[in-house]
């Protein structure tokens, strides 16, 4: 049982006009096995929250804390955070020329597990995971995210989730740009990982669509850099109906 604890998190980015505050005190606690949906309008700071937890260098933490089982996450380097059990499925996965998916996955698994996975079982593991995500085996030989369609990029993120087995996964708009079939396959992937482990999930989304496939235990409404309302799954239904207008015009 692990706990990811975000307290009073304040984050700024450097812009031409100076520092702009984006997160204005975010409080959120996620325990193993829980799924928290973070829903909010575009530009409300959802990705900033995700990136800040993962340690993207563009974001400056100006206040608050993030801890994983009491250990200060913000003091860790990006790779240490991943090794500690955090995973970020990115809204815009990055192309890495020259590195094949195979090579990338194996290097990542080696880093996370602390030793190189046994080649025999590893090859099978990757094949199996790719198959269940409906990914063409040729995919493994392509360069990371290079020339991938939007849907392929998202499947590739979930493939990594399956193989790296983190304690907590932050899924940043994993649903965006997916057609219904791909959404179902990707959601099944997430549910499979959750079924096989005690994964805690921060599911960031703009739309309620994905919540039909991945049932949240808690829903948090995010607006203007902080959580403005919290509730159970029923809150998502209300958002579906009424949108975010009530939160953005305040």
């Amino acid at each position: 049982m692990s706990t990811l604890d975000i307290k009073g998190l304040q984050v700024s980015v450097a812009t031409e006009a100076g520092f702009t505050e984006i997160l204005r005190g975010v409080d959120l606690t996620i325990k193993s096995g829980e799924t928290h949906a973070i829903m909010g309008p575009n530009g409300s700071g959802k990705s900033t929250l995700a990136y800040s937890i993962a340690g993207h260098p563009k974001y400056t933490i100006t206040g608050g804390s993030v801890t994983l089982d009491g250990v200060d996450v913000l003091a860790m380097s990006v790779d240490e955070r991943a090794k500690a059990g955090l995973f970020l499925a990115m809204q815009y996965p990055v192309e890495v020329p020259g590195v094949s998916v195979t090579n990338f996955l194996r290097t990542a698994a080696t880093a996370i597990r602390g030793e190189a996975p046994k080649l025999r079982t590893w090859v099978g593991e990757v094949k199996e995971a790719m198959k269940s995500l409906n990914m063409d085996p040729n995919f493994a030989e392509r360069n990371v995210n290079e020339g991938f369609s939007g849907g392929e990029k998202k499947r590739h993120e979930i493939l990594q989730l399956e193989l790296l087995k983190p304690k907590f996964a932050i899924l940043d708009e994993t649903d965006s740009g997916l057609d219904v079939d791909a959404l179902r396959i990707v959601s099944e992937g997430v549910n499979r990982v959750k079924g096989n482990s005690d994964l805690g999930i921060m599911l960031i989304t703009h739309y309620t669509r994905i919540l039909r496939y991945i049932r949240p235990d808690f829903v948090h409404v995010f607006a203007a850099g902080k959580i403005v309302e919290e509730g159970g799954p029923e809150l998502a239904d209300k958002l579906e109906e009424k949108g975010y207008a009530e939160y953005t015009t305040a």
Partner: protein
Amino acid sequence: MSTLTTNYLAPTGREEAWRFTPLARVGGLLDSTVPLESVNSISISNPQNGVKLTVKSAADCPAISSSEDLASIRGREFIREISHIEVSNNVQLELPVLLKRSSLTGKPQASRTLISCGVNSHATIILQNTGEAILSDEFEFEVAQGATLTFVSLQEWGNKTVHLGRQHAIIAKDATFNSIVVTVGGSLVRLLPTVEYSGPGSSADLQGLYFATDGQHLEHRLHVDHNVPNAKSRVNYKGALAGDKAHTVWIGDVYIRSNAEGTDTYELNRNLLLSDGARADSVPNLEIETGEIVGAGHASTTGRFDDEQLFYLSSRGIPAEIARRLVVRGFFAEIVGKIKNEEIENRLMDRIDAELAKVGA
């Protein structure tokens, strides 16, 4: 010492062929007042049946190809003796022939080697360039009918070396020439892998990698002359650059003459910039005089390894140093793997890792 040539005019840097080269750094190799010492620098370190090396008088063995390259033209003027490597007709050499250099002094020298592969022979020849040199160097290959020659040229020079080289192949009917050029060492390396054909059905595959760090100038100028019908050529060069004032130049000239119907050619150059301050020039150039061809194409890309990529890899637990190594190794694996020699592969990758570590990239 030879007399100086009278009609030689040193390049000024305004010539198309020399516009990228830092001529101030060529160590006298192109200076009409500096004589070059003729050197037999090549020896076979693993003699085997079916291949022999003979030192011959240059007068008895004039160059088999005409060159427009000033460095090799000048080199030829000073060469007294050449090394002639012959692979017998119909032999299939089991082991690669390993060539090494000796007698390099670090003063301006010139060396010329002729490699003749007999009809239907099969050979792999690997040249390892190590140590320090200021060398004008020419290799010519005659690949006879039905023969296959794979020539691997490894530039693992020390960091003061100046190497101006030409590697010219003449490929006969149904013969194949595979070239793998790897340039990781040297202060200034300018190599000209060039190809012409003497019969149809022939094929050239020119692969290369170069990795330039701080202040290195690594230049590769390829030229494929499709001067016969139904010949094939493939060019694939990959370069990575890291550190301040690392400079690479890749020129890919493919010329399809009017009689070269049925030509099939494709050339590709990819560059990977690992840090700011490095510069990769890439100029593919295809000239086509006949439309009756199978295919002709080229592509050139220059990509960056940037903070976003580093973040992505790091966010999967991969430490920054390993992330860079992963990117570079992955990028080069395709070419290095073609050498099909694990010892060399490991040595090259280790060298690349070490260079990466040195520039702190």
